């Protein structure tokens, strides 16, 4: 096994594992999905290297593409729900403050 090929393979795999670990560890959902899409694309690259072009194409199109899009939409929807609930909690806290100061007068 030529040294150059081995170095290339190991870089390829290390990046792959790095992307996967990053996708798994990031707490913020949207970042995680972005990293997951990157992981999917990189994985299709690795599979192209292993001589599986149509599987690579499928992974890029379906795995990273459609799967990623679905997750991104879900992440955005839940994020939107969070800040809708946060500002609902804020304005509820505001009018509670108004009520309290009215009693105070």
């Amino acid at each position, binding site marked *: 096994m030529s040294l150059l090929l081995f170095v290339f393979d190991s870089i390829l795999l290390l990046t792959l594992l790095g992307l996967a670990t990053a996708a798994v560890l990031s707490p913020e959902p949207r970042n995680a999905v972005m990293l997951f899409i990157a992981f999917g694309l990189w994985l299709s690259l690795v599979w192209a290297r292993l001589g599986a072009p149509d*599987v690579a194409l499928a992974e890029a199109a*379906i795995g990273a593409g459609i799967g990623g899009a679905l997750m991104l939409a879900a992440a955005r929807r839940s994020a939107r729900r969070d800040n809708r609930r946060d500002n609902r909690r804020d304005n509820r806290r505001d009018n509670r403050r108004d009520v309290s100061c009215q009693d105070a007068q």
Partner: protein
Amino acid sequence: MNRDLSLLIGILVSLLALLLIWIFYTTLAADPGPRLAPLALEQLPNSGVSHPVTAVLLNYRAYDTLLELAVLLAAILGIWSLGPAPSGFQPAGPALTVLANWIVPLAIITGGYLLWVGGHAPGGAFQAGALLGSAGVILRLAGHERAGLPNEAAQRWLVVAGVGLFLLVGLLLAVFGAGFLTYPKASAKWLILLIETAATIAIGSTLAAAYVGGRPPLAQSTSAASKDLGA
């Protein structure tokens, strides 16, 4: 998730990984044999297609692909059974609309090309279907309520087309031909192409409908000009 429990699970899982890697090592050391490759390539001439993966996918293990389309159907039926689609995204700004006008037809043409090229080069129903699906996603992002899909009744036929045609071909061959999904050598190529076209349309519409994420509004509300998929 307190720290030490996740650490403990981490250690256990990494032990499992090392064990699996050792097993994998002993397996490869034993006989890195060619497995089914020579047999599949030798049967290629009378499978009706020249690309080995498409031959395996649509001829040798056609039954798997039929079931996999059924899995897709199950997923979309599950999504539809959960209720109406959540509200769509806000209508797209000018840049996205222009982009969509270019990208969507391009994706559809590439999908068609991929479908055709699958017979002799990497490509085929799934990749083509994925592209059509992504065209639907882009339309949905650009504000189109039903991601370019027709009304509810038509969507039901679209989603069912892939498995339906595949099954009908299989049953007809079972009754008249040599057996369930046993293509006669002469017409194998055309049968496979027919099945792949239906599968592409089905996969495309299913993925787009999945992205919409809910039951399409009933027939009477087709007010918006339904830009059909092929436009």
